[in-house]
């Protein structure tokens, strides 16, 4: 790798001045939003995950297929009951500040994550599950409060990345990243960029890039122009509206390539199960049946996605596909409404944020065909959060029947179901926004999460998905693909199903 870059620069140096400039081994990546924090445990945003990935590593890591691979731990094992997990750490790993990444540091990092006094924004799924973290020689031993089949996937998440104990004690992590990753923190200029510099004492293969510059713009057309002009070498995401500009033969295709990767962001409409007539499962199923999910994918995503009819996303083990149910069945929907006594139709109100408004408009048109009138209330992010997480009586007062949003928790079925459907997660405590309450489903969620046997777990999740589709407290709509653009002189860029862009192994094509 190093050799090709070296040859690249030598060749370019002799050949042409402009090519030599291109050999400056750095990369500018443009995202849709700025980072929330440089502390991996204090954020929950996909764009921030992308920016933090080159700085930090976790005990284990997962690839784009969901396979678990060694990270800071070289091997691991779980007890028979699935409650005690032992991780053997990789030796001679250093934090960017020079401190050794030993079992004590890893244990301190995980203890900090679950410490209620630390009040970290990303602690949600870990607190209450991880009961204890201890060092044992070169090992770290994690004890869980209950068996959890997907614990390795949780530990691979950015929030569980290991942070330097010195930086954590100093309280500087929010502004200054300090981990063990192949890039160290350069600077973060608010509103402009975050710069990562190659960490020369990295334990693994050295990246070919000298630096990564992260920028951001909320405006999709600006992101598209930045890719065309070369102001950004990589952009994520690129709007489906602009993706067609890069199809072979069109002028922009000479500059960059747009890649499509299966995403995991499941878009849905949550129904208020306490508000008549949505408290009747037949009405909810009628609404679900009247949705043409294929049309949503074609119209709103320009084909860059797939219809979703069940609660679990396609890349997750045990997920079920739509099949023929992706289309609408208006006759069946009308029959159900008639059985429920609502054949004359009714009116309901949906609250959405601006990006989801086109979904609401599409549903408005589709539900009109069964006599249901959807009133759309578009709200600013903070106002929407207030409306969406309101308790039942407030939602009743405001007549909020439908909440449209999306959710991403790749590979971990429990994180796709428990927060949205478990009775204990009912708003405002959690994201069960429609107050769905089914003790049978609750018991099955617990059983599935603790079932270590993959086949048995998949079967349980199959049952849960069917039950949820019948009860229809939330209407899954589609899963959106991730689209990212890469300049033609860049190679080695990939994406993960949670929308994270991975550029640590990127390099420039050698000049011929």
């Amino acid at each position: 790798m190093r050799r090709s870059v070296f040859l690249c620069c030598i060749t370019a140096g002799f050949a042409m001045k402009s090519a030599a400039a291109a050999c400056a081994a750095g990369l500018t990546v443009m995202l849709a939003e700025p980072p929330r924090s440089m502390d991996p445990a204090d954020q929950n945003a996909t764009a921030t995950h992308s920016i933090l990935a080159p700085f930090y590593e976790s005990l284990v890591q997962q690839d784009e297929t969901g396979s678990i691979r060694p990270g800071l731990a070289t091997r691991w094992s779980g007890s028979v009951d699935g409650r005690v997990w032992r991780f053997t750490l990789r030796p001679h790993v250093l934090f960017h500040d020079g401190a050794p990444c030993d079992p004590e540091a890893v244990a301190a990092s995980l203890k900090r994550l679950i410490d209620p006094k630390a009040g970290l924004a990303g602690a949600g799924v870990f607190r209450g599950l991880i009961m204890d973290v201890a060092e044992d020689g070169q090992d770290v031993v994690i004890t869980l409060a209950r068996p959890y089949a997907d614990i390795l996937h949780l530990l691979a998440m950015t929030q569980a990345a290991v942070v330097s104990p010195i930086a954590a004690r100093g309280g500087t992590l929010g502004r200054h990243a300090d981990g063990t990753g192949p890039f160290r923190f350069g600077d973060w200029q608010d509103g402009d960029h975050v710069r990562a510099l190659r960490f020369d004492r990295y334990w693994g293969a050295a990246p070919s890039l000298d630096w990564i510059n992260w920028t951001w713009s909320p405006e999709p057309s600006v992101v598209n122009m930045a890719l065309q002009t070369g102001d950004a070498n990589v952009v994520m995401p690129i709007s489906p509206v602009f993706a067609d500009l890069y199809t072979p033969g069109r002028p922009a295709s000479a500059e960059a390539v747009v890649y499509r990767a299966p995403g995991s962001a499941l878009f849905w409409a949550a129904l208020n199960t306490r508000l008549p007539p949505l408290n009747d499962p037949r009405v909810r199923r009628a609404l679900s049946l009247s949705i043409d999910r294929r049309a949503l994918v074609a119209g709103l995503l320009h084909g860059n996605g797939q219809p979703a009819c069940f609660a679990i996303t396609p890349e997750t083990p045990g997920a079920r596909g739509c099949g023929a149910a992706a289309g609408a069945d208006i006759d069946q929907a009308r029959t159900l409404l008639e059985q429920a006594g609502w054949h004359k139709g009714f009116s309901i109100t949906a609250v959405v944020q601006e990006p989801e408004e086109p979904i609401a408009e599409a549903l408005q048109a589709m539900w009109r065909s069964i006599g249901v009138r959807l009133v759309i209330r578009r709200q600013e992010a903070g106002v929407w959060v207030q409306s969406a997480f309101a308790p039942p009586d407030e939602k009743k007062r405001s007549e909020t029947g439908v909440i449209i949003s999306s959710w991403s928790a790749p590979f971990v079925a429990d994180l796709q179901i428990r927060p949205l459907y478990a009775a204990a997660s009912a708003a405002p405590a959690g994201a069960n926004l429609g107050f769905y309450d089914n003790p049978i489903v609750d018991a099955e969620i617990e059983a599935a999460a603790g079932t270590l046997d993959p086949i048995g777990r998949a079967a349980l999740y199959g049952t849960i998905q069917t039950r949820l589709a019948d009860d229809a407290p939330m209407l899954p709509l589609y899963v959106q693909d991730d689209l990212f653009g890469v300049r033609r002189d860049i190679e080695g860029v990939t994406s993960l199903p949670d929308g994270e862009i991975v550029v640590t192994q990127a390099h420039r094509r050698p000049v011929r």
Partner: protein
Amino acid sequence: MTGVARRVTTLLVVMLFVSAVVFVAIHSLPGDPARLMAGPQAPRSVIDALHARLGLDEPLSAQYVHFLKRALSGDFGLSLRDGTPVGAAIAQRLPYSLLLGGLSYVLAIVIGVPGGTLAAVRVGQWPDHLLMAATLVGASLAGFWVALLGMEIFAVRLHWLPLMGAGDWRHYILPVMVLALMPAALILRMTRTGMRDVLRQDYIRTARAKGLPPAIVLTRHALRNAMVPVVTVICLNLGGLISGAVVTETVFDWPGIGRLLIDAVRYRDYPMIQGITLLSILGVLGANLVAEILIAWLDPRTRGN
């Protein structure tokens, strides 16, 4: 001296009053910063822990008292989002906004005042029609759209100008022009109207009758008097420079106060919103003061007031 002291005292009282109003207004905004930080996945326990960490679990009155104590010593607190001192974040961004806004206003004045004067002198003739049509277009076009159009033409297609960011002088050209569009149209129309009124006055006729060169009549006698309403409008708009270029800064990825404010509002970063809002109010009050001084200089008749 008494006048200055009175003005400063008034300013402080206004600031104190406004700070209380702004504090209550900001905290009344729907949306919980902890929920926005932690995301929808976060359970209630995490939200509660965040409230405690950020000091949001205290009564509003206690939070205001803390804010006021800190503010009096020049400390506007820490950003809820990333713990940055609000004063430092504003100080980092302010020069970018002031430079962008200042340059755009200079450009607007350079276009608007001579253009308005020319239109007034040539009223009813083709320069007047042309300039009026131009101002109509300038005032009607959405800055957002003009910005994207300019980027597409000059950065993407012609490669003459950089697309975005705040680097060298070339980065200023597009955003300054876009931001100057509306005020230039406004100033031009105001100047034209003012000049038309003044040019009909008896003292102008007298000046011409005395045989003064037309240029002297225009600049020394007419323009100075016509400038009073124009200066008022310019100064009132100058106050909004600090946070007024939100759209332009967002489109051009400009690291100014406008974008900082947008992000702060999005994440309900109360201390940051409070700091920027107070700075904006200070800017408006300061601009009003400058307007009064300039008007008194331009029109001595107002000095007694």
